[in-house]
């Protein structure tokens, strides 16, 4: 089981801030493919990965990062702090 979090317009497109999913995905990219296959709202949200960022267990990460042992994955647009 893994917590998947969405922020900003990714959250709005997917419609929930967080969900708990059962997955055997080996990498972030595999997880994205799994989600896209689920429903159209995921396919829309993940249509352009270059517009997205990802954090694995609350550390900024890459789409090819492995997920073994990861408990929390978050997807969001480029950050706009400051």
């Amino acid at each position, binding site marked *: 089981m893994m917590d998947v979090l969405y922020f900003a317009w990714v959250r709005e497109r997917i419609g929930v801030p967080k969900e708990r999913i059962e997955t055997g995905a080996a990498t972030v990219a595999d997880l994205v493919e799994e989600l896209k296959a689920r429903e159209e709202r995921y396919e829309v949200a993940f249509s352009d990965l270059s517009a997205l960022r990802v954090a694995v267990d609350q550390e900024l990460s890459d789409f090819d990062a492995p997920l073994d042992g990861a408990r929390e994955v978050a997807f969001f647009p480029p*950050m*706009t702090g400051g």
Partner: protein
Amino acid sequence: MRVVVQDAPFDFGREAESFAKAQTNMGAVVTFTGIVRDSAKGDMAVMEIEHYPGMTQKALEKIASEAMERWELGDALVIHRYGRLHRDEMIMMVATAARHRVAAFEAAEFLMDYLKSRAPFWKKEIGADGADWVAAREEDDDALSRW
């Protein structure tokens, strides 16, 4: 080093003063304050700042620690708000203290460059006819290559 993430307003004058007064033998203190501007459309009623509660504090501490090490700072302060803010309200501040001015300036700019594009905050401008997420600016990402 102090890192604060909160929805409440902060008292910039008091924070700046007490940061500077707490230093010993530091010749230079720099502060930066980020303030809510109107949207490009000019109709912004409120800005909503979303963040990633579990990650924000850790991400800011990591950035501040790196600044402390790279410039041998006497101290560093980061305060960042989230939630709903109005125009001309203060969003955030950083402060740095160093023996010389170049280090204090550079460290403050480093903190700002990293906060801009590596701290998990997202800004939404809510105006008269709808809301827009603020897009990240390419030059903010480019700014990191300086460090």
